[in-house]
């Protein structure tokens, strides 16, 4: 009997431990942002090839609401409002930067100013066509695109991206595709696990 009870107790402890490790629980605003920005949690990914580094951040609606509120704690109403304005889209920030962090990526391997302007125009308007998301058996084109122009003052260039999605929940992994024709790195893929997206931590409100 004693042995059986011990086995039962250990099983219960094990189950609770496994359950606790699977569920991500709830986090306050700052912890939520930190958690999302941590590459180990599956919402921020990086790839690098020959001097160019791509960093992709998946942004949940809660994450965007916190950013809008400048990191301050949110009330349930303001969170709901914040989330509402981002409905029907799935958001990312893509950063392209140089390894040495000394050059503007737009100037890499160019020989003239004309070429720089051409590249700037390409990234401002046409690069959107090279971005796609594969989700729930659909291929979704980039619906919202904005290049954050820093006029060569930073060794990186950021793109704010939005893809129209029918649902927040995903049944399969979400695959982000970027066709890099400028630096000739070809298709650059990032896979966000459905488990990570569906089980993202909840945001604590005031």
């Amino acid at each position: 009997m004693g042995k059986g009870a011990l086995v039962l107790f250990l099983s219960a402890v094990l189950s609770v431990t496994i359950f606790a490790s699977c569920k991500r629980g709830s986090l306050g605003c700052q912890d939520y942002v930190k958690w999302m920005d941590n590459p180990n949690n599956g919402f921020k990914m990086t790839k690098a090839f020959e001097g160019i580094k791509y960093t992709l951040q998946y942004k949940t609606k809660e994450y965007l609401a916190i950013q809008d509120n400048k990191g301050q704690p949110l009330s349930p109403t303001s969170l709901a409002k914040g989330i509402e304005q981002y409905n029907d889209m799935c958001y990312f920030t893509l950063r392209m930067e140089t390894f040495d962090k000394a050059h503007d990526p737009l100037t890499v391997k160019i020989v003239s100013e004309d070429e720089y302007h051409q590249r700037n125009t390409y990234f401002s308007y046409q690069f959107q066509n090279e971005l796609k998301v594969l989700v729930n058996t659909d291929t979704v084109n980039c619906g919202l695109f904005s290049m954050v122009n820093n006029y060569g003052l930073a060794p990186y260039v950021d793109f704010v991206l939005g893809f129209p999605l029918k649902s927040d929940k995903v049944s399969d992994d979400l695959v982000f595709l970027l066709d890099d024709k400028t630096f000739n790195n070809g298709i650059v893929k990032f896979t966000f696990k459905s488990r990570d997206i569906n089980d993202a931590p909840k945001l604590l409100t005031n």
Partner: protein
Amino acid sequence: MNRFFLWGITAVNLSVISFVLYLYFTKEKIAYVNLNKVYKEFEMKKELENKLISIQQNRKTIIDSLEIQLRAFSRHFEKAVKIDEKEQLMFDQKKEEYRSKKKNFTEDNQALTQQYTDQIMKQLNEYVRNYGKDHNYDFLLGADNNGSIMHAKEQFDVSDDVIKYINKAYKGVIK
């Protein structure tokens, strides 16, 4: 005397253990990969190969269609007693279009093949390098049947492991 002997034995034992541990931990980690196998099994290579075949096939269809039209013209001219000027002009235009398209497609196919090969090699090299780093290899050698590696025991062949790793890396699953 006995105590002195025991201390001596212990010291010798410790030295031997330290030496073995030193050898174990400082031993260079080396493996090799079969480059042809890795290249063939790389998902990006398979995807781009299919894309290239599809593009080339579409271009071939256009060329074949022009060729059929030109043959039809030729047959018509062979049978005709008098050749109409308009038809002759159209034939010349088609012939020119055929020549120019064939030349452009051949050049574009070569350029695209080269572009895709460069892209594949860039990503493949990076992922294999990362594999070496992640698995703490001091040397990761590439066997390509050209004599770069004359002999190596199969136990040092990590090609299958590398294939799994690079395909995961290409998919963007590895963080």
